[in-house]
């Protein structure tokens, strides 16, 4: 467990950084940095409540859970991740009315895998679920054929997307 924590979190300027691996989610109150590194067709979904200053980030891998054979839901799947992350945000004192969403990712990097259109479907399902839950999508950087790294700063709600082409603040 000690080793796990060492990898998962370190400090930057005294602010705790947390990385969400594939299918994981992380929640932090202010101050905190939530990161998803090097995603291609995966989606980094960030939810943020600027009044309570709490943020959550999920690293979503596939569009749907194919009927939910498993009892336990997982953030791996776009159709389940939105609900799981939202629930967790509410448990951490966020108010549903105040939560906004930002997403990045959903690229298509290799032509071999183009036929599956995973990235595109991931983004579409996440957006659909956000609409269903009435969460406003305020920023997005999806599609393309390049990888991204994403950081959510729970102090400002700033959503930074780093890619080969440069850095964007959304």
């Amino acid at each position: 467990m000690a080793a796990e924590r060492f990898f998962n979190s370190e400090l930057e300027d005294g602010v705790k950084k947390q990385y969400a691996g594939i299918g994981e989610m992380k929640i932090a109150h202010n101050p905190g940095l939530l990161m998803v590194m090097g995603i291609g067709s995966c989606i980094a979904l960030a939810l943020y409540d600027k009044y309570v200053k709490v943020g959550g980030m999920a690293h979503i891998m596939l569009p749907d859970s194919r009927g939910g054979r498993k009892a336990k839901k997982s953030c791996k799947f776009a159709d389940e991740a939105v609900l799981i992350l939202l629930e967790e945000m509410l448990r951490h004192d966020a108010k549903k009315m105040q939560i906004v969403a930002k997403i990045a990712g959903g690229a298509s990097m290799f032509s071999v895998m183009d036929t599956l259109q995973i990235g595109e479907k991931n983004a579409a399902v996440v957006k659909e679920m956000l609409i269903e839950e009435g969460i406003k999508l305020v920023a997005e950087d999806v599609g393309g054929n390049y990888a991204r790294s994403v950081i959510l700063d729970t102090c400002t709600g700033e959503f930074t997307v780093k890619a080969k082409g440069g850095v964007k603040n959304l």
Partner: protein
Amino acid sequence: MKEKEEDGDGDGDSEFELNAFQKDALNELGNIASCHAVTSLAEMTGVTIDIEVPTVDVVSIKDAEKLIEAEKMVAGIFVQIDGGFSGYLQVLFPERSAFHLVDILMGKTPGETKSIETEMEQSAVVEIGNMLASSFCDGIADFFHFSLMPSPPSFAFDMMGAMLENAIIAVVQAQETEHVILFRCDFQEETEKGIYGYILLFPQHDSLKKMLSMLEAEVRQDKSEMK
């Protein structure tokens, strides 16, 4: 301040572990295959290459990116393998090694290549990657006496994490699993001047099981011959 680490992740319905024998056997297989691959690289480029002992890891998908530097820029190819065995293979070169390879292949002075944007530069990396991939496959196929058909390679030059993620998605898409098996083989130029690379193999679980039982059969046969 409240803070909690959560991973909303449905744990291990498909736990997969390798015993010591299986690990050794796969390491050896990786060794044979990567020797094949690296020999052909040496023939093509004229540089002498050292390979490290390959490692076989069973990693849970959420930890896979911790094995590597997710943001490191790498150029490489992605190949789908079918035939006696199915899975995905990647050959990746860190940025500078890729530039160096392009220099060698295109007869430029070392240090001249500074990007991989033109079609010529890309195809140089694709060619080398593809050659490494096919000789790696040949190594495995020869050993088991079956045939392997690698798909045409597709190229990318981007963050390593995203490259890995693509292969993981492909494996998980085919079979719901919390774990991937990762064959990792690092190689470098003997003089340590410039070329480093990684060969990553992501077998489908069915294929891996089949391969393991073939390996075990082989060993049993050897033992009985010795008696």
